[in-house]
């Protein structure tokens, strides 16, 4: 069998593996090796510099006894759920509307996608000024005449996290819209025509036929938006600085301040491992179910 394969065939079989191997090595070292290192540090008593001893789950106990961490975790869940739901809903709506063969589609697409080009620091700072009661929306509306209008969410510890949601949704809706638009474009128009012949109304067509066909697009959007949500360190820092008080603390800002500013590297590493476990617990089953179906379809 082997002798019938020419050298060229063998080489072309191995070429993809050869080309991918540097990236694979880089990922294994740069990502998984350092994940393992962080896990080890989270089981040590590291404070300012890494110490390679073993203290069991002491850092995790310390982590969960910190009220700031509980605030951070609660904030992460609230933020992620709201951010994902609202961004996907608005992004899908805009994509469907843009898909209707309208005139200025290219221009509108660019307009909606522009916020994505800004760094989160710019978004955070701009929205900090917009949401400030003395400078932004509240002042403008008051000056226009509605003197009873109040919009001081950013100053209230209970509502500040929703301000972070607003800024993040504004930034990422265009991105969700772009992915959904690409997915919509890839749908065969003959299916829609067949449904219209059967007498289905347009909303019905969208809800029952097209949206389920966008499953791959949903997968991409959810994975990428969740990644943005977990990563939202610079947005929180620029928008509220973690405040008022600790009201908008997120696991990422907690990890940063514990490791680099409070000389509690062990607690920071433990919080990073907790973030990883949370993300893995959600993404891995989701990926598995999506990819299993994809394999079944073949």
């Amino acid at each position, binding site marked *: 069998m082997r002798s019938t394969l020419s050298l060229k065939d063998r080489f072309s079989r191995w070429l993809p593996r050869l080309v991918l191997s540097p990236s694979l090595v880089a990922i294994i070292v740069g990502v998984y090796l350092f994940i393992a290192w962080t896990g080890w540090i989270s089981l040590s008593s590291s404070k300012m510099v890494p110490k390679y001893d073993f203290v069991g789950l002491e850092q995790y106990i310390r982590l969960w006894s910190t009220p700031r961490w509980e605030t951070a975790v609660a904030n992460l869940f609230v933020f992620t759920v709201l951010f994902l739901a609202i961004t996907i809903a608005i992004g899908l709506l805009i994509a469907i509307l843009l898909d209707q063969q309208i005139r200025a589609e290219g221009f509108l697409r660019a307009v909606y996608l522009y916020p994505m080009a800004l760094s989160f620091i710019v978004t955070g700072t701009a929205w900090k000024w917009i949401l400030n009661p003395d400078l932004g929306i509240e002042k403008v509306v008051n000056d226009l005449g509605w003197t009873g209008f109040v919009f001081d969410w*950013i*100053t209230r510890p209970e509502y500040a996290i929703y301000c972070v949601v607003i800024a993040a949704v504004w930034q990422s809706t265009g991105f969700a819209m772009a992915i959904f638009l690409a997915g919509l474009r890839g749908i065969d128009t003959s299916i829609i025509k067949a449904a219209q012949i059967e007498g289905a109304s347009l909303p019905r067509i969208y809800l029952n036929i097209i949206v389920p066909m966008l499953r791959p697009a949903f997968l991409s959007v959810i994975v990428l938006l969740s990644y943005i949500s977990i990563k939202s360190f610079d947005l929180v820092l620029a928008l*509220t600085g973690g405040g008022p*008080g600790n009201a908008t603390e997120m696991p990422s800002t907690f990890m940063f301040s514990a490791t680099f500013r409070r000389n509690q590297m062990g607690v920071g590493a433990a919080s990073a491992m907790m973030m990883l476990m949370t993300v893995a617990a959600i993404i891995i089953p989701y990926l598995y179910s999506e990819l299993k179906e994809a394999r079944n379809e073949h």
Partner: protein
Amino acid sequence: MKLITLLAASISLLPVAAMAESKGTVEGIHHWVSESEVNALKVITDKLASKGYTWQDSAVGGLSGANALQALRTRLAAGNPPTTMQFLGYEGLDWAKEGVLRSLNDLYAKNGWDKALAPQLLAFVKSDDTFISLPINMHRQNWVWANKAVFDKAGIAEPKSWDELIAAGDKLKAAGVVPLAIGDEPWQILEVFEAIVTDVNGTEFYKKAVIDLDEAALSSDQMVDAFDKLRKVRGLVDDGFTGRDWAVATGMVASGKAGMQIMGDWAKGEFLAKGMKPGEDFLCFPTPAATANFKFIIDAFGVFNNDDPAVIAAQDAWAESIMDPEVQKNFNKIKGSIPARSDVSVEDFDACAKRSFADREAAVASGNMVGGLTEGFAAPPQFSGVFSDVVGKFFVTDMSSKDAVQALVDGIKNAR
């Protein structure tokens, strides 16, 4: 061909010729990036240049020095430390424990610098019996900066106690000005809180509660009372204080929109830059205390272990530049602080600096000089962080004083 070879050879000699001018390089990591800080640093580096060494600047700004500390950690891990590094708070002592700092005992002994420094300061430049860093300046963090016109109009004199200060704030509120300009960043609020704790209860209580972290002191009635006072101060703040930078708050006082600000003496530069004069346009006085105290913050430079004698000579020149009395005087004139050395006269400094100097002398004599908590000169960062969290949360929510004290005690226990 010969000409080309000659030219090439002479060109390759040029860098050597340039290096022969300088006896060596001092590379330093620090976080002074604003204009006045850079100008102040130039005073030291000019002195270094006059000794024949070149200064290689590795400034890493941002996050009040956290980024610079990260840069240092990376360099040390790579085995390539800079020649010198700026330390804040306990950083110098922490690195000394890791054994990477060079002992400065010989320099201190030769020049007698230990006699020129206040004894309370020595705790931060000396690790056990080894001198490990060189302080250049001393800031004071509990100043009250007030707009003189606003105070005169409301008929307020310099308050002599915190109750008087709060009453003055109420008068200002009635007059239609914002009584206290502040931002919601936890460190700004902590500066006010620790001023209350020390001024009302004395430095002995402060040492027990904040430095020794004694649980009985932390859960005492005096702490509850301090939180009560902080709650009253909260009533003196306007609603738009979220996300306000400390310099913007200083601007509010300078323009007359607000009556006073409680901030360290780095705020003085903002007034001076606007052309305002102490005593005429703005007032400066320490937060009112029953017994006068002095809360200090210092910037100190340490040098790292190195075997190369040329590097050691460069480090010696750097050390001597920092501790030179003329350099200390000129540096601090620009920076707004007072010299770390107690024997450098502040005759030609402004009125606020002169008051600071006199207060320091008195505090050293009476034993009431302590390190500031907010900037890391009382409790180490893992504990000062707990204070920062609890006080910051207390200020922006309607947490009760008793809950705050309980949160403080639990947090300190958790961070041990």
